[in-house]
């Protein structure tokens, strides 16, 4: 599925004629009517990643995920039988939101309102004053389940009554590409979150191209991500498979660390432990030509999740629509637990590097959105290496128009 590009030579998008090469409408990036269609026809049909298995490691471990885009809240819990299940977080009696805590461990979930209590498999254990109800069949009063499947440790849900396709069918080739990366080793998570004043696609698109790096991140991005042969951070390879896409981002192997980070990296390397386990994290298909200029591979798991595979770590972005011009964004970096202070110091510096760039990115997203509604421009013009944006646009429109979409 991978197309090797020639830096500076147009033609990547030509491999996918279904995408076209013309401008695209800005209207779906702010329209109330389009947003309603996305809610109904897209987010209620696709598989959505809402967490990691490490968040529910032991029986009774649970977390709650509020899903504004589907007007619901999801309870994910590992049962006594060790199975992970998902439910609408809603009491069967009078509809109260059942669990209010963000996460925890419990073998039973009592409703605050009237004490109806559910077990980890969603079944109703007890209802106070039970004999005062008429024909109460407790076996029919469990929590409403949602479809839940796990891929490479990522927990996905699907809100269709019966999903059109399994998670593995949905993720297709890009899902298989993740195989072999040791996601389960990177159990330490550093997360940033912001409610952004922009459409979720404005936010997603900002992280799906390298064209902005030399300009928006000019203070440091040019040293880190550009090379003399690739000064505008074009993708050395990219590819589309069905609704999902990948792209490789260049790193500068000749980057000269600044004074503080030079010390940090020097000591982390000097005191590195577990040397025998330090093989590559990247599956063979990622950076297939072993380029020394490889920084990371970006994977877009449609609709709203980006997973970036880096040697020895991974990071993610996720974009949850709150309204046509509001998005809950979360950016996370995942590491193996640091076994000494020098490694913890290095990890701190690495996620601060990301935080600094994400601070630049997020403000720019809001400044795009601030202008969109003016209607002064009704089209976006996409560069050849803004192909992933074009692909997202087309895939969203296919769902909204209810065209058949498959992997």
């Amino acid at each position, binding site marked *: 599925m991978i197309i090797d590009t020639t830096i500076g030579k147009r033609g990547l998008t030509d491999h996918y004629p279904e995408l076209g090469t013309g401008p695209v409408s800005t209207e779906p990036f702010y329209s109330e009517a389009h947003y309603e269609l996305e809610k109904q026809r897209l987010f209620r049909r696709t598989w959505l990643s809402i967490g990691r298995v490490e968040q529910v490691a032991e029986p009774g471990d649970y977390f709650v995920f509020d899903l504004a885009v589907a007007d619901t809240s999801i309870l994910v819990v590992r049962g006594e039988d060790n199975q992970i299940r998902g439910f609408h977080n809603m009491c069967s009696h009078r509809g109260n939101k059942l669990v209010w805590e963000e996460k925890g461990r419990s073998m039973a979930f009592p409703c605050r309102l009237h004490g109806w209590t559910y077990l980890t498999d969603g079944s109703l254990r007890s209802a106070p004053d039970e004999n005062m109800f008429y024909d109460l069949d407790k076996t029919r009063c469990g929590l409403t389940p949602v479809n839940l499947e796990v891929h490479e440790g990522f927990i996905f849900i699907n809100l269709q009554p019966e999903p059109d396709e399994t998670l593995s069918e949905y993720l297709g080739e890009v899902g298989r590409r993740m195989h072999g990366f040791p996601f389960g080793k990177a159990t330490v998570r550093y997360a940033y979150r912001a409610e952004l004043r922009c459409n979720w696609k404005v936010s997603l698109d900002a992280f799906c191209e390298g064209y902005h790096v030399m300009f928006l991140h000019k203070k440091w991005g040019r040293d880190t991500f550009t090379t003399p042969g690739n000064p505008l951070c074009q993708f050395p390879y990219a590819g589309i498979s069905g609704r999902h896409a990948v792209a490789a981002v260049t790193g500068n192997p000749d980057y000269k660390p600044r004074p503080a980070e030079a010390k940090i990296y020097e000591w982390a390397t000097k005191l590195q432990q577990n040397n025998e386990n330090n093989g590559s994290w990247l599956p063979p298909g990622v950076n297939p030509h072993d380029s020394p200029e490889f920084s990371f591979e970006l994977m877009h798991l449609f609709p709203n999740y980006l997973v970036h595979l880096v040697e020895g770590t991974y990071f993610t972005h996720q974009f949850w629509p709150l309204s046509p011009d509001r998005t809950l964004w979360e950016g996370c970096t995942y590491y193996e637990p640091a076994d000494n202070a020098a490694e*913890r110091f290095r990890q*701190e510096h690495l996620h601060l590097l990301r935080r600094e760039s994400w*601070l630049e990115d997020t403000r720019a997203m809001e400044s795009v959105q601030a202008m969109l509604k003016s209607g002064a421009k009704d089209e976006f013009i996409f560069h050849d290496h803004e192909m992933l944006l074009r692909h997202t646009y087309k895939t969203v429109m296919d769902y909204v128009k209810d065209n058949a979409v498959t992997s």
Partner: protein
Amino acid sequence: MNEQTLLPPGFEDLNLYLDWALATESARSRKRLGSSMEEMQKFYDAMLPRVDDVMEHLGASALEAMQPAQQNLFNLCLSLSEVSFAVEVYGQPEVPNSMQELGEAERFVIVHD
């Protein structure tokens, strides 16, 4: 409190900068945004040449095994990473062109603290 116990023996010179020994990233970031470039430059100039000594002293330690004085010393290191962006890259406390410049730094939530 006896000042000598706040950092491990041999690091008394850094006692001047104990207000940078902050346990969370949110606190370190807030301290950076509330400091002048002169203050940060002074801390940076004092701290950077001591990184080798600090790492000799505690770089190989497991995080959970650190004594409170060592933890303070390590938090000074994490603050060095924090201020290095202001001192080495931007020449100002805030990330340029970010919501920090609009006075909206708190909208960017550090979830892991």
